[in-house]
């Protein structure tokens, strides 16, 4: 190849990095900084009559109920993170790198428990593991002939809450680790073997260090998800008699609302998250983990041998708890009169379906709004996430790291607080967005941006910049390189990010609950309303509809070749 000087003819168009950077800075800035500004503003504002004050922070430190809610939330999220990582990592390894039977099916089922909205999972676990009426406890008492009141498990406890959240959070860790394991090239491991490394040595010295960033990133996401989660604690912690910080902040909005205190109470969450993210960055920053050269061979498959049966038992146990039991409980409840009913032919009924589909006036509008917003949010967020993570990982523009910070920052804002921030930002005559779907779109874009960005940036860091540099050396513009070289390598991740954001959006509850009005109702909110009045049957029907839609989206995305389905399929 003769390339002493870049051939002018190949440098098509101008480099769009700068204008793109400027535009994205503006968009992300408005999305993130505006609600944060209002949060800070309100935290220093006197609720009773305006004016500057430190009272909210004094109240925050002095109020034992707030401190307790913080302590419990932190303990809960650490518990969730550890549990999720401990369960997900070996599972990801088994599925990605061993000859475990049914690996493809297992992946699909794990995706299923990711698709499950956590609040629906929490409701399923009320049905399964409530101390008196929970199916598990009913069976337990009848087997051992125990007295009424005896129980094996109680979901209305702190550990119950950690368990119920972890069940539907571990797929974050699983997906990232499994994807990372898929990408570990066999040549590195082969090298280790050739040099005499035993299987465990190779695993310990080569494979694990290579997937450690994914483990940490996944665990961190699990922790942050749990910390900022509203639905599951609202459903399980309140009956157990405690608040976590999100439900506590929510309670501050009741009559008479104490917005200043709520804003002040939310700020430490922001700080905790920033610290966590910086820690993660430091851990990952020490070594270069980039491995994918775009040419890696099929990953090496470890033969499990006699370990096959324990491995199957482990995977089956996890899937039972996160997929089979909850779904069975939801389906059973959707078709029986009351939750406590045993499953007999006489108890079967379609009354909940009839109610939800034909009598309940909110259903249709909510379904339409939900799917419209899911589609729009997923598309916009994925597009922005791709560009931002490209700019950030390739550092093509000075200061582009700032974009990454902006795209990650909303993770630190509990949805409910973001809801208030957005409410204050946009419910004024200039914008008049409250009461429209636009404010929800803005909320969802902000909330889902970190998830999309995390997906895309870890995908980008797996693609070695040398490949792009080659393209640049050959004279192609940055966008051209992105399109011709990077994009094909990233297709699977883009599809995954889109699906992540879509299912994340259609189940969002915490910001939604403050931002919906009668005309912008969403399925998650009517589920929450129905939970408040104890209508579990109707909830399960709506849950099944929501799940069916989510699965359909994920299924289609995985099948359509142009979306990357062929790559996923090839991997088995």
């Amino acid at each position, binding site marked *: 190849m003769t390339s002493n000087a870049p051939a002018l003819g190949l440098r098509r168009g101008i480099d769009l990095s700068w204008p793109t950077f400027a535009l994205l800075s503006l968009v992300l800035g408005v999305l993130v900084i505006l609600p944060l500004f209002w949060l800070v503003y309100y935290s220093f504002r006197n*609720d*009773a*009559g*305006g004016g500057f004050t430190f009272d909210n922070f004094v109240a925050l430190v002095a109020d034992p*109920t707030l401190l307790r809610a913080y302590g419990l939330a932190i303990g809960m999220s650490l518990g969730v993170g550890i549990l999720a990582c401990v369960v997900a990592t070996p599972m990801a390894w088994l599925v990605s790198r061993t000859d475990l039977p049914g690996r493809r099916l297992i992946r699909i089922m794990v995706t299923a428990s990711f698709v499950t909205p956590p609040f629906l999972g929490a409701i399923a676990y009320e049905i399964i593991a*409530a*101390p*008196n*009426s929970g199916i598990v406890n009913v069976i337990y008492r009848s087997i051992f002939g125990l007295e*009424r*009141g005896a129980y094996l498990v109680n979901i*209305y406890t702190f550990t119950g809450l950690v368990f119920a959240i972890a069940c539907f959070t571990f797929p974050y860790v699983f997906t990232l680790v499994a994807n990372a394991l898929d990408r570990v090239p066999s040549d590195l491991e082969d090298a280790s073997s050739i040099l005499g490394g035993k299987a465990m040595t190779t695993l310990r010295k080569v494979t694990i260090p290579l997937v450690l960033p994914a483990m940490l990133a996944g665990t961190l996401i699990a922790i942050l998800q749990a910390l900022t989660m509203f639905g599951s604690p609202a459903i399980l*912690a*309140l*009956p*157990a*008699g*405690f*608040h976590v910080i999100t*439900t506590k902040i929510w*309670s501050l*909005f*009741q*009559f*008479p*609302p104490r*917005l200043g205190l709520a804003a002040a109470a939310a700020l430490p969450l922001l700080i905790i998250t920033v610290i966590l993210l910086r820690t993660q960055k430091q851990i990952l920053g020490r070594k270069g983990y980039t491995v994918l050269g775009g040419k890696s061979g099929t990953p090496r498959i470890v033969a499990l041998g006699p370990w096959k049966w324990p491995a199957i038992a482990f995977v089956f146990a996890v899937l039972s708890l996160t997929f089979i039991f909850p779904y069975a409980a939801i389906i059973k409840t959707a078709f029986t*009169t*009351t*939750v*406590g009913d045993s499953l007999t032919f006489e108890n079967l009924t379609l009354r909940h379906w009839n*109610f939800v589909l034909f*009598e*309940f*006036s*909110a259903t249709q*509008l909510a379904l339409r709004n939900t799917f419209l917003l899911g589609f729009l949010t997923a598309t916009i967020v994925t597009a922005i996430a791709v560009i931002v993570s490209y700019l950030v990982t390739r550092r093509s523009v000075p200061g582009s790291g700032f974009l990454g910070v902006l795209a990650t920052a909303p993770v630190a804002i509990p949805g409910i607080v973001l809801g208030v921030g957005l*409410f*204050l930002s946009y*419910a*004024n*005559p200039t914008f*008049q967005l*409250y*009461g429209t779907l636009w404010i929800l779109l803005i909320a969802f874009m902000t909330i889902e941006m970190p998830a999309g960005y995390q997906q895309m940036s870890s995908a980008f860091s797996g693609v070695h910049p040398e490949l792009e540099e080659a393209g640049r050396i050959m004279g192609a513009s940055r966008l051209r390189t992105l399109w011709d070289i990077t994009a094909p390598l990233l297709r699977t991740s883009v599809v995954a990010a889109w699906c992540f954001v879509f299912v994340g959006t259609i189940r969002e509850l915490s910001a939604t609950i*403050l931002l919906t*009005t*009668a*005309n912008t*109702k969403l399925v998650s909110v009517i589920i929450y*309303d*129905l939970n*408040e*009045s*104890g*209508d*579990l049957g109707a909830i399960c029907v709506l849950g099944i509809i929501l799940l069916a839609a989510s699965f359909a989206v994920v299924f289609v995305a995985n099948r359509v070749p142009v979306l990357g389905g062929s790559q996923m399929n090839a991997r088995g």
Partner: protein
Amino acid sequence: MWTKTFGAAILAAGLSASSLAMAEAPAPYQITPELEAAAKAEGKVIFYTATDVTVAEKLAELFKSKYPEIAVQVERAGSERVFQRIGQEYSSGIYGADVIETSDAVHFQYFKREGWLEPMVPQEVADKWPADEKDPDGNFAAYRAHLSVLAYRSDLLPEADAPKTWTDLLDPKYKDRMVKAHPGYSGTVMTSTFVLSELLGWEFFEKLGGQGVMQVQSSTEPPKKLAQGERSLQVDGNEYNVFRLQEEGVPIKIVYPAEGTPLAVGNAAVLKQAPSPNAAKLFYAFLFSQEAQQLNSDFGGLRSFHPDVKEKANRTPIADIKLLHSDPAKLEPEIQTIKTNYEQYFGT
């Protein structure tokens, strides 16, 4: 308060200029063909309500059977959340709701003070409602009443073991067996917590908090937890949901304690900025009609102030129950104290 917290938004929306006091109630109105025609032209009415969703949808169905051209959109949530939504919407200039109903009487004092209600008096209310169950200025009237009752699963708790009074609940034998709704979400429970704290003192709740009580949100939920078999005794919760479950064959019995049973009155009103003012006016009159009130009683188990409504024979007539009334004017300044004390004793 909403005015203060969202002061900027309100000022901007130009609501600060709204009038405060009404001179007197407007003349009663009847449903005329003109009103019906105007309502049909609007085609839709949005009803924010705290009544159990099944009951509210049944009522909407009855309305639609009379006026098929007018769709009814039912927006159901706990009273305190309905209130929160209206507060958010009105302070930011969003006018989604036509007719509103909650079971916390304080809310309607507040709405009236803010000038958010459109005074109007259906003929039926003017003729038949007791004077103290309607606003003298015609802003709202009592659409329904219900009690917050003690109740138990008769198959899980023998009648002899059931509590007879509020203080019986402090007996250790009921530990971990009770379910209770929350004053922060339910207007019914806010009202009942207030009257019971006045009657029995906060020591009662402090001791009750030590009994391992399951905490739920809306007052519609405890009866459903009884039906589910999750708990065998409800400390508070709607009488009307108990009636409905009894009729479905769930073995639940109500206790009207000797000290008295808290009464919650659910007011209804038309909002000044109703997007469909004529449909709102028609629907509002319909809410108080004998037909609608009878449906609420028969299907919903609600108590009615309509003198011609016949209650089902198996229900204890309200005249035979010792009632604990709550004064919204006295309750309003106590709300924060109630919530703080409650959290201290029950954890949430």
